């Protein structure tokens, strides 16, 4: 991408289809985009590959910001299944709740969910980071290989089943842990990375509150199900 001067382009999905939006975002002519009237459309802002900022004014359907790289996508609404699926880098920020499989297989980048994340959040996570400010649903972090998941609320059943080396920091109750996922000691290096993740997610006040940080528990693999 050539260096662009800072400009904001509005794109109204009530007037133009998602495909046109995504083609524009794949060859951006501006640094900032505002997407209006998404009305639950699927595949909004999929495949961004440049350091652009996209703000979506409303709720999105399936696979929003999938395969995301370098840019920042903010959804001022809810996200359907598979938001930020296979994200590689950059930031995806959901102001409402996110449906199932949020951040699935993400290799990098940061997914911030202000509300709750549903089932299978961070399934097969491969190095991305996810911060859920609300609760997270069952079967999340299934076979998660690398990366970190922070949950400020409660988590559902079978968390971290068959987990590899991803690290989970959960503040509230966990309904149950999946096979080979165990509670782990929170050492200084873990505390530091948790504080950094909270800061990255815009939770400066909480990150500086020792009692708040202390109230998290770390979970990870017991390493009895895999051998390398």
């Amino acid at each position, binding site marked *: 991408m050539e260096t662009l001067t800072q400009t904001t382009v509005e794109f109204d999905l009530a007037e133009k289809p998602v495909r046109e939006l995504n083609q524009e975002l794949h060859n951006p002519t501006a640094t900032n985009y505002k997407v209006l009237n998404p*009305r*639950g459309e699927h595949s909004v802002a999929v495949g961004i590959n440049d350091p652009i900022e996209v703000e979506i004014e409303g709720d999105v*359907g399936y696979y929003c910001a999938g395969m995301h790289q370098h840019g920042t996508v903010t959804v001022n609404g809810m996200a*359907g299944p598979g938001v930020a699926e296979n994200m590689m880098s950059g930031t995806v920020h959901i102001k409402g*709740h996110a*449906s199932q499989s949020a951040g699935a297989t993400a290799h990098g980048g940061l997914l911030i969910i202000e509300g709750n994340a549903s*089932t299978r959040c961070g399934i097969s996570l491969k190095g991305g980071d996810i911060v859920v400010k609300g609760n997270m649903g*069952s*079967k999340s972090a299934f076979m998660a290989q690398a990366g970190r998941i922070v949950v400020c609320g409660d988590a*559902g059943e079978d968390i971290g089943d068959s987990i590899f080396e991803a690290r989970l920091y959960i503040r509230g109750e966990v309904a149950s842990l999946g096979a080979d996922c165990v509670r782990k000691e929170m050492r200084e290096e873990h505390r530091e990375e948790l504080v950094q993740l909270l800061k990255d997610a815009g939770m400066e006040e909480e990150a500086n509150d020792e009692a708040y940080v202390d109230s998290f528990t770390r979970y990870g693999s017991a390493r009895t199900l895999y051998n390398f």
Partner: protein
Amino acid sequence: MCGIAGIHLRDESLVPQLGSLMHAMVEGIEVRGPDSAGVAIYGDRERLPEDYSSVSVLNAPENLKELVSEKLPDADVTTEDFADTTFVRAKVKSVELSKVVAEVAPEAISIGTGDDSVVYKGVGNPLDLRETYRLADATGWQGVIHTRLATESAVDAEGAHPYTAGTGLSIVHNGSFANHATIRRELQDEGVEFNSENDTEVAARYIAYRMKEKGEDLHTAIEALSETFDGFYTLLVTTEDSFAVVRDEYACKPVIIAEHPQWVAMASEFQAIAHLPGIEDAKIFEPGPKKVYTWKR
């Protein structure tokens, strides 16, 4: 893939708006099931005045009204066609009306019987069918919509949802059951009759059987279903006083519930309920695996 959506009103003042709310809900799930669509509407006093009952059938003979009237001369019998459905209404209890319809038109397939509910289903695009069903004009306290994309049987009216059993029990399903044939045989051994080969009908008959023969309430009967049925499912089960949602233990068929002081709604996709009044204040959540959620009037 199928689309399901339903709304259960808690505030009587919204009763006149039920149809317009449902009409817009169809748009959010149309893409999930463009083959066929069906609805169940509870408490529409214009379609079904007090003391009247309804029987909806497929494959009705043309002179069904005359045939039923002969048997029930004082019951103010009327019929009306809605796509593939013929809707019969009379001023008798539904048990009596359904018996008469079955007797005079044995070739007709009953798809719904109600003292407070009506059912229509048929083949076609849901956006067209909602007009055929005059959905925008509906009133009432509860409504259900299903849009079908057939995967395991033919695109025909018999395969469209809702499936019903007994009086006013309706079920819509996104998914498929693996062991329905076994359960069907077990129920048949107990004397339960079926009128399609569809897997969802087995679930409807099973719940009705548990409630009638075992005296279980809806919640308990659905818990029994989730222990007995194998497969992938999100179900919305409604009766003439209740609204219930359940998913299988893997919870992979999408569904979202919104609970508001004035109403409870569920849908396969959020966009189907995004227009509901007060949605921004509703408690919105995805139901957990194998948990039964019920709301009673």
